[in-house]
Every structure is written in structure tokens, then in C-alpha cells.
């Protein structure tokens, strides 16, 4: 039986297997159709119906269930999540698992289509070490992401001492809902220090 205890391990392996079968296109279709459209349709429904309130309800439930170390901050027409200890990437790091080329892409790979359908856009950055931040705004809201500490104060993951570390490499997504719009980022020049 395929279980949920080590789900992140075989999820990562599955990304690599799908990529072998059909490249980036099949993997992106998988995140969009199977994860966003099927597995996480409860998230999609909540966010479409309730907007920011739906995001709060969904992530409060799922991040508690996954025992994540995170904070969620609500600002003026924006929801921000600071992930200090990603339970998913953390599982891979603790167990020395790395089958797929960029595991962290899967999050925007499915959250992006959910947000697009519900009328939101995303600013997001991850350091591939279990830390990331997200800001969700209504599509058409062109305000830039917050500066470090501006919205989440001390909970801002960009203020953490290990946000920048020797193992970290940064990917940045700006005002998008597509995993294809990835910008490799230098944290000195990225939204971390805007």
C-alpha cells in the first residue's frame, strides 16, 4: 500500500518518473490537473467561494495537519504566508531524498492554477532549504510584494538568520500563477531586498 506517512518521498519520486515519461509538459499538467483540479479541489472551492477567507481556512487546516512551522498574515487585500519549516521539503531534507530536479516547484505548480481560477495572483520566493514566502493579491492589484518585515514583522522569513545560507538557492515568482515564470534570484537583488 502507498501510504501518507512518507507521502512527500514518493510524491518527489513520482515527479521524477512523470518527467521521464513526458518532460516538463506532463509534470506541469499533473500539478494542474491531478493536484489542483482533483486532489485539492476542496482548496479550490474554498478559495473561489470565500476569497481571502477561504485561503485562511484552507491553509489553517492543511498546515496544521502537516505540522508546518509557518505564520499567516492578513494585510490590506493581501494574504501572506511565511514558511519557516516546510513539512514537505523538510521531510526530503531530513531523509536525504532528492529524486526530482526541483521539488519546490510543485507548490506554485498547483497553487498557481487554483489562484488563477479564483482571480488571484502570486508573489513567491523559496530558498530550497524549507523556507519560502507567499503573497496573494487580487488579479490586477499591481502593488509590489512587501519589503522584509513590512507586513509580517518579525515573522518575515526573509529576516531569519538562515534565509540566506551556503546551501540556499533562490527562485522568485512575481505577479504570476504559472510555474513557468520562474526567475532565478539573487537574494541581494530579489524581492528579499526590494
Amino acid at each position, binding site marked *: 500500500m502507498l501510504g501518507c506517512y512518507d507521502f512527500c518521498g514518493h510524491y518527489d519520486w513520482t515527479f521524477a518518473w512523470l518527467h521521464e515519461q513526458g518532460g516538463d509538459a506532463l509534470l506541469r499538467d499533473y500539478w494542474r490537473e*491531478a493536484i489542483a483540479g482533483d486532489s485539492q479541489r476542496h482548496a479550490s472551492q474554498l478559495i473561489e467561494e470565500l476569497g481571502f477567507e477561504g485561503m485562511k481556512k484552507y491553509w489553517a487546516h492543511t498546515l496544521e495537519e502537516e505540522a508546518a512551522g509557518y505564520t499567516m498574515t492578513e494585510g490590506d487585500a493581501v494574504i501572506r504566508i511565511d514558511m519557516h519549516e516546510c513539512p514537505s521539503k523538510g521531510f526530503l531534507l531530513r531523509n536525504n531524498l532528492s529524486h526530482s530536479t526541483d521539488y519546490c516547484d510543485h507548490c506554485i505548480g498547483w497553487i498557481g492554477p487554483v489562484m488563477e481560477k479564483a482571480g488571484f495572483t502570486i508573489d513567491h520566493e523559496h530558498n530550497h532549504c524549507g523556507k519560502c514566502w507567499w503573497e496573494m493579491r487580487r488579479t490586477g492589484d499591481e502593488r509590489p510584494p512587501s519589503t522584509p518585515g513590512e507586513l509580517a514583522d518579525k515573522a518575515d522569513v526573509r529576516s531569519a538568520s538562515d534565509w540566506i545560507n551556503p546551501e540556499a538557492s533562490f527562485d522568485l515568482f512575481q505577479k504570476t500563477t504559472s510555474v513557468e515564470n520562474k526567475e532565478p534570484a539573487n537574494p541581494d537583488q530579489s524581492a528579499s531586498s526590494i
Partner: protein
Amino acid sequence: MDKTHSVMKAGNLPYHDTKPQGAADFYFAINATFRFIQDRLGRQGWIAYLRQLGARYFAPVNDSWRQGGLPAVAGYWRAFFAAEPGGAVEVREEAGTVVLDIGRCPAIHHLKTHAREVVPSYCEHCYHLGQARAEAAGMAMRLEGGDGQCRHVYFAHPPETPQDMSAIRAVTSC
């Protein structure tokens, strides 16, 4: 759940998490993954996925079964089901086999509780995955039942008779 007990049990698993049990909503993703692969790559593609997953991702477990024999198989499955939420499973060793009597499958239970449309052949995955893993350990696995209640048997010496696929029940969705 007693934390000390669960940590001891988890010692038989190849990969460890910080929490004693997994998040049941991940069964939604497993079900959706099966549907996607069947739709895109067909039934044979899905079976190939499961067999490769069994042989490659689970290689550390398969190696421990090969080295430890049936006690290692039994220990693994006790630890496995202790870490899956919502199941009711008895694991026992008897006459050259390990038998898993699954009175309530945690995955099917969670999927049905949340009114998910379950892939009809969902229960077959346990056979294709389990048999690939057993083969890698020099054993065999057979499955009977499904749709929430079933019996898995691991044989130290592979039986001559192949798996009867008609013995695996399709899942009925709500």
C-alpha cells in the same frame, strides 16, 4: 497515541517524519495521481509506474526484507500501519507467510468519508506495488478483497499459482 511507542514502531520504516502519523488528506493526492496516470498513460503505464515505484523508491525496504525475511516484513507493516491514520489492521506471521488482515483500509476509509470519487482499480495498486517489492526481496505477494477490506499475504517462497486478479474487488464510490 503513545509517543514512545510510535517512535519505536517508526524505527522499522525507512523514512521518518517529525509527527507520528501522516496527513490523511494526502490520500486525495494518491487517488488523483492514479487517475491522472491511467488517463494519460493507460493501464499498462500505471502498472509500470507502480512496479518501478516498488522496485526503486522502496529499495531500502526491499533490501531489509531480503536480509531479515518474514520478521522484517511483519515489522515493517506493523510500523507502516501505526503511522497511517484511521486504519484497522492485524499483522501476523504464520506458516511461512506474513498475513495482513485489513479490516478498515485507511485510504479507502478517508476517501469515502470525504465523498471522493475513487479510482475503481485503486485496490489493485496494493498488488502491483506489493508484488514488485516482494519480488525484489525474493518473495511473493497475493491479495484478496478490496473496497476497504482485504487480505495481503507475503510468501517467503513464491507459490506456483499466480495472482487471481478477479479476487481483487473494484472500489465503489459514494
